[in-house]
């Protein structure tokens, strides 16, 4: 009696708390295993709900990677004033290369440009007539990946304002269209992700709600013999966590299966276009986000259900 009046020390209490968590964590898993069919169905629905936004996200990532192959479409040409000495052009090239907003800066000296024009244009003989090289030095500039249309345009304006730069040629319409499409898909992904996250919370919340109703008698007994709200809530929270975690793993498996199925034909198609392209997977970070996100959503769903329904159960 006197010992209880003083209460256990903080270390003892921490131990007791940890033990209680461990027990209820494992017990929740055991209960799931006790109803394999019902649990499997719930996990399957969760996995699909999680796999959809994850798949869309992968689609966006892959589209962006693929657009890396079209990145030359975002290149723009900077033509220098005709009388600019080659040394100045080289200096400008060096200066731009240190700017992180450019991925690549290539100098095309006037002579090289003329040579290229001569061999490609078919006007070779006509050009022989010219005494001077009419072409200016030019720079081919590739903006850093990830810059949006506005940033690229600002960049072009900045370059155009530089001394010795005569003209900047930029196909902004194409850049803007491309960025706009990516933007839409990205937002769509965010929207679908948010909706399906809510769906996951609702699904798990409903599963836990049914579980609470099913175990109403047990909850009453727990309350009668002094189980605290936290103690009674804990197995349900762990239940939600396990559901979410399992759903996350299965959705990851679904995505990997889909990638394995789509990978070879995509590579073959890319091969037909002469490109070397393979589908990118979610990667370790993506997998962790998917599984971890599932677990967090599961916990959240269970929390919503317990907050709403556990309090209503009182022994009478």
């Amino acid at each position, binding site marked *: *009696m006197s010992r209880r009046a003083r209460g256990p020390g903080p270390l003892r*209490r921490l*131990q*007791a*708390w940890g*033990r*209680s968590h461990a*027990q209820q964590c494992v017990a929740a898993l055991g209960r799931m295993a006790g109803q394999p069919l019902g649990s499997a169905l719930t996990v399957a629905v969760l996995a699909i709900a999680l796999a959809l936004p994850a798949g869309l996200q992968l689609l966006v990532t892959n589209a962006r990677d693929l657009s890396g192959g079209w990145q030359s479409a975002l290149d723009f040409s900077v033509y220098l004033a005709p009388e600019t000495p080659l040394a100045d052009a080289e200096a400008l090239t060096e200066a731009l290369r240190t700017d992180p907003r450019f991925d690549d800066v290539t100098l095309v000296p006037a002579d090289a440009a003329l040579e290229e024009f001569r061999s490609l244009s078919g006007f070779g003989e006509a050009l022989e007539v010219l005494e001077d090289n009419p072409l200016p030095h030019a720079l081919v500039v590739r903006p850093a990946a990830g810059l949006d249309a506005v940033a690229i345009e600002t960049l072009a304006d900045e370059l155009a304002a530089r001394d010795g730069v005569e003209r900047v040629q930029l196909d902004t319409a194409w850049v803007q269209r491309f960025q706009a499409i990516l933007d839409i898909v990205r937002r769509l992904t965010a929207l679908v992700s948010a909706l399906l996250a809510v769906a996951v919370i609702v699904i798990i919340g409903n599963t836990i709600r049914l579980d609470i109703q099913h175990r109403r*008698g*047990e909850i*009453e*007994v*727990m*309350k*009668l*013999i*002094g*189980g*605290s*709200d936290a*103690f009674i809530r804990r197995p349900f929270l762990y239940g939600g966590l396990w559901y979410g975690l399992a759903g996350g793993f299965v959705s990851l498996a679904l995505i990997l299966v889909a990638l394995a199925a789509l990978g070879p034909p995509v590579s073959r198609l890319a091969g037909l276009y002469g490109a070397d392209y393979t589908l990118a997977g979610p990667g370790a970070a993506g997998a962790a986000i998917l599984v971890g996100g599932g677990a967090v959503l599961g916990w959240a769903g269970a929390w919503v259900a317990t907050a709403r329904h556990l309090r209503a159960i*009182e*022994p*009478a």
Partner: protein
Amino acid sequence: MIRCEQAAKRFPGGGEALAGIDLQIDAGEFVFLTGPSGAGKSTLLKLVALIERPSRGQVIINGQNTRRIGRRRIPQFRQGLGMVFQDHKLLADRPVFDNVALPLVIRGVGHREVGRRVRAALDLVGLAGRERQAPLTLSSGEQQRVGIARAVVGKPPLLIADEPTGNLDPELSLEIMELFGRFNELGVTLLIASHDVDLITRLGHRRVMLEAGRIVGDNGGAG
């Protein structure tokens, strides 16, 4: 241990289950609460266990006024109270051991300590060695003993029971009551509601008689 001052309970839409009673039960007493059905026995026990709160008056348990115990502190309050029910309220999907261990698990008692105390409690109620059985494989009397073991495993100073022998034949009822008597000898205060007048008269503890929500008799423990 228990003090009621003008404690009354009126249920919404119903009559007055308790009409303002005064009752004092000291630590170490063994008290039977008796009277016909609907007299207010269960209601009084519910006030003691904080399952219900008095509409008027005070119920003071172990120096704590139940009015001042907030919802969040009820679990802690109930941990200091052993409760036995007519329908046992055992968890059918768990073995005897887990049922008896529940109050200790709730408090986060260590694994080894739980085993030791559960076995001691089962031994006390005469169910040593039955810990792995499922409650439903036991007889009604044995199930009630499991319920009692669960009520006493946390060593509460106060034990309350609502018709603990309601479903038992006279012989088993006597056994259960004698079991309660043993706990009383160990210093536990007992408050037991029962309408089995023959049995409790024979046992000769204090009897408080309720009728229509009022105390109509209290022999003060004399015969």
